């Protein structure tokens, strides 16, 4: 069901209309968002992707290009083995922040499994909680530490 709503939501960018007072068209994920200090609580790979990763890598995994770019995750051979996405999600790389403190081991396994089997990828999912635990640094960066407000 969520997939259908999402398909409609991805068409929205084509209609460049000002957000007037009529009720906004909300995707199911946006509608169901729970904000707050608990952060990300879902253990569903698709939901985690669509409410976190999709912001940059886009709902269909197509990535984006501006002055720089966000890599596409669809049809991405780097996702064949879980070690690579697990390491990137836990520790970040270049412009991508580390999400190790946002997500627990189970959530990262669910997310990587989604990446390996959806968004146009058809790999044998091989992520395990042990892999995630190994990838975690001894003293993880705190993504909420603010030097500025």
């Amino acid at each position: 069901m969520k997939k259908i709503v999402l398909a409609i939501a991805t068409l929205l960018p084509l209609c460049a209309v000002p957000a007037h007072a009529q009720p906004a068209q909300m995707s199911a994920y946006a509608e169901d968002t729970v904000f707050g200090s608990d952060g990300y609580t879902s253990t569903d790979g698709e939901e985690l992707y669509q409410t976190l990763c999709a912001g940059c890598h886009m709902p269909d995994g197509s990535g984006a290009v501006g002055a720089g770019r966000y890599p596409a995750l669809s049809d991405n051979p780097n996702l064949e083995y879980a070690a690579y996405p697990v390491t990137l999600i836990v520790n970040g790389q270049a412009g991508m922040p580390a999400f190790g403190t946002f997500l627990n081991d189970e959530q990262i396994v669910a997310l990587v499994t989604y990446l390996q089997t959806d968004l146009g990828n058809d790999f044998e999912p091989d992520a395990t909680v042990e892999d995630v635990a190994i990838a975690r640094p001894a003293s993880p960066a705190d993504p909420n530490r603010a030097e500025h407000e």
Partner: protein
Amino acid sequence: MTQFTRRNLLGMIGTAAGSSAMYYAMASMGHAAASNYAGPIKLDGDPKGAKVLILGAGLAGMTAALEMRAAGYQVEVLEYREKAGGRCWTLRSGDEYTELGGATQKVDFAQGNYINPGPWRLPHHHYAVMDYCKRLKVPLEPFIQTDYNAYVHSSDAFEGKPQRMGKIKTDYRGHVSELLAKAVDQGKLDEMVTEDDREMLIESLRSFGVLDEQNAYVKSLGTSGYRGYEKMPGGGADAAPVPSDLYDPSQVIQSRLWRSLAQHESLEHWAPMFQPVGGMDGIAQGFEREVGDLITYNAKVVSLQQDDSGVTVTWEDTAGGGTRTSTADYCVCTIPFSILGQIDHNLSAGLSNVISSMFYNGSTKVGLEFKRRFWEQDEQIYGGISYTDQAITQISYPSTGYQSDGPAVLLGCYTWRGADTFKFNAMQPAERIEWALRQGEKIHPQYRDEFKTGVAVSWHKVPWVLGCSGVWEDREAQGYEEAIKVDNRVVCAGEHLSYIPAWQEGAILSSLDAITRLHDKVING
């Protein structure tokens, strides 16, 4: 040999160089708050026609362009966007903004209304920004950070009803002062308070906390004179003031609303703060008036190479098409590391490591335009900021146009890092706006009836920077010193290479320091 005393040294500097030089000297000697802005930069020595290529026409790049041309360099500036300013950016009626993913927003604000998606307020102690605004004739006006009549709000406190900050502040201070005064009076703090200090401390707490002669914080016309009355004093008949009930101490402490009070006290938010009249991009336009003739817009840098003889930059003309090349003797690169890390370059290994390991902050801002200033007309809130524990974190009311009729724009959401920022980032603009309305209407029930239009910017989706500022977890471990070095013929600059990240002051100070060191190398080898 004469021994200089500090006073006669200052006297000499004052006589020789005028009072502003004396001020900077005093500041550096600890008499006033010191900054490493030492007044207008002086790049002495003849660069003999050397050419410098500046990448990026944000504040760091335009500062370098302005000062290096003045010092005698040939200057060329390449800018990815169609206009100058970078993150010093204002969205106003008629503008269009397309974020990554393709969502385009047409800003439908009334004429003259705007939102600053990036920097939006200037601390008075950001000396470099203030000085450039003066030199570039950018008119400033007060930015109201603190408004005692704005709200503090927590979903779990006071049944979710927003509270006037002045009431909470006065009650918090009063109750805490009462506790402390009583403890001191009863001798419970004798180990920490000397007998000499005891009486003076209690007297000060009576003043600070509005306590009575028994050191109690109680309902009275006296305390109402600080927290607000049940009925304000008036004139003529039936005009006597009626004091207001105090909130219970436990209620005030448990509400956690005191968390918002400290926002106003940090140095960065000390009153007075300022804003450029008409939008933050007034600063960008001020610089552009000076150096606009040097800037090539719509130039997407794809390669930055240097060797013993010079610097070669390859760029795509995104407006006219085609690939072009610019060469120079030196380069000041203000491209954010989030972008530079994806550009083909042959910078040193040390610098490259920092470039490719720096990630960028996310932040979300939502501007909401309402048909009328209900916060002024219904709630007597004139500028300032209401804080909430909801994801939007705050509502900032316009610091200008008071009492005017017609639509006005407020900042309806400002997130900084954290999971909520990523949740907003994963949404479409209309969804972010809808959530800003859902949360804002808990504070202002007028929201739905009065809403006209909105615009939402999530910084991870801004095509030319991919985030709002560079993040240092540990400057020493990550190589800050390496990153600011002049790397052969190239030096990097921007807010990301400062100790004031995400502030324009950091961008300008970084640039001034970088070009000073580059110039020294050019002149002295």
